[in-house]
């Protein structure tokens, strides 16, 4: 029961999904399974939350280094959850004017957008370190990035204005995107397709079972 049921279940569900792709009336199963997946995920989130509270609660209880920050985590979680579930108008909890929306706009959104914006700095430091013409490969990387970066802002227009139309930096950038970039991307995508398909078959055949090994 412990080993066999999961393997058989995986195989049956997997094969059904493949067949459903070719047999239109079975499409309804696909949607149903997806809905079930969401339901499972909605239950599973309790596992995550419990884990979060245990890890941070442990910190506070043992007065570990940084336990105060653990308290902030739990407090932040509780406040927004209680507000979101009970005091923000049910399903329309995300509407403007609800307390949930206020927290979203003035706490969550600035934090998230700023974290995202850090990328602008990291893009700069990473390109300074990585884009050096060490060998042919690195030079190709460098040149492509350089042309694309300049070709998409007015600077590219200025410094290549002396060239005839159709041969400026912006045009070279367009050509790189349309041909060599597309070629490389296609090779990667086809490779990924084969990798995914073979992994999927390994899962269905019960060869890949990190999720149910042990004991």
């Amino acid at each position: 029961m412990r080993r066999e049921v999961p393997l058989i279940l995986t195989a049956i569900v997997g094969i059904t999904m493949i067949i459903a792709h070719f047999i239109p009336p079975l499409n309804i199963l696909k949607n149903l399974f997806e809905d079930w997946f969401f339901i499972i995920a909605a239950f599973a989130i309790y596992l995550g939350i419990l884990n979060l509270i245990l890890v941070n609660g442990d910190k506070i209880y043992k007065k570990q280094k940084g336990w105060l920050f653990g308290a902030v985590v739990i407090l932040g979680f509780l406040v927004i959850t209680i507000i979101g579930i009970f005091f923000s108008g049910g399903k329309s909890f995300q509407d403007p004017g609800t307390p949930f929306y206020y927290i979203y706009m003035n706490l969550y959104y600035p934090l998230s957008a700023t974290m995202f914006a850090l990328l602008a700095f990291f893009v700069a430091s990473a390109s300074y370190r990585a884009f050096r013409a060490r060998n042919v490969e690195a030079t190709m990387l460098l040149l492509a990035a350089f042309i694309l970066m300049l070709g998409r802002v007015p600077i590219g227009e200025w410094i290549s204005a002396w060239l005839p139309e159709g041969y400026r930096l912006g045009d070279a950038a367009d050509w790189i995107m349309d041909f060599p970039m597309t070629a490389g991307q296609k090779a990667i995508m086809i490779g990924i397709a084969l990798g995914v398909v073979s992994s999927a078959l390994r899962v269905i055949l019960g060869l890949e079972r990190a999720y149910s090994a042990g004991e």
Partner: protein
Amino acid sequence: MNETTNQEKKTFWEKLLSIDRRIIFLFIAVAISVPLFFKTSLDMPVSPVVQEVYNAIEKLEAGSKVLVSFDYDPGSMPELQPMAESFFRHCFRNNLKVIIMGLWPQGPLQANIALDQVFKDEDIKAKNLQYGIDYVNLGFTAGNEVVIDRMGHDFRESYPADSRGTPLSEIPLMRGVRNYDNIDLILNLSAGYPGTMEWVQYAVDVFHVKLAAGNTAVQAPSMYPYIQTGQLAGVLGGMKGGAEYEIALKRPAKAVSYMFSQAIAHGVICLFIIIGNIAFFSLRKKKTS
């Protein structure tokens, strides 16, 4: 990186190669922020699709009614907010009447933020615009394209009252407005669904009203077919489209200075890459000799 064993004897080039990343960060922060303070006018050619949007508004006579639909949320603010401000500036400058609405819940709030900005302009302040007479904010109504469809019969089916709760019949600006027949132009700012595509299909195709739009850079290219068929007057695509519009309007504002930040930042990164390579090669030359 640890090619030099002796820390003190680092040459200039070696120091440059292992430069503290915080110095790069500082350069980027400066490159992005400083241009924001200078309302620099950066000259860019205005592309035809942008010029068409400008012409659509410019052609309207004073007193014409323009419906502006705000279909985005704060996530697209850097791209669409400058366009919203330019639209308002253009309309108010030409003495057009503006009706604001939103198919996205946060949209009408974005409109208020834009209005606050625009009212700081001296020439617009001087006009002493009145809520309810020169502009009105209808707010958000749920229902996506169904809202567009119903408004084709009567605005009141979707909006019995404005965002402040005043019935439309009591608002002077709305007295002469029944449906799209009384609207001279629709402007749409969109970051996805529902957005420009729905306005084309449910308002333009069915009720034959004129439409122009501002879109995120990702979305704009998919609007080009509609421009070709004339269902859409024109489209502003992303920060660059917004900047070009400001130039067409001869009122360079946020998008142009944003574009300036953008260009300077790209330049700084490229400069760093060049410096890094010079350092790398001079060091290698020294090693081989």
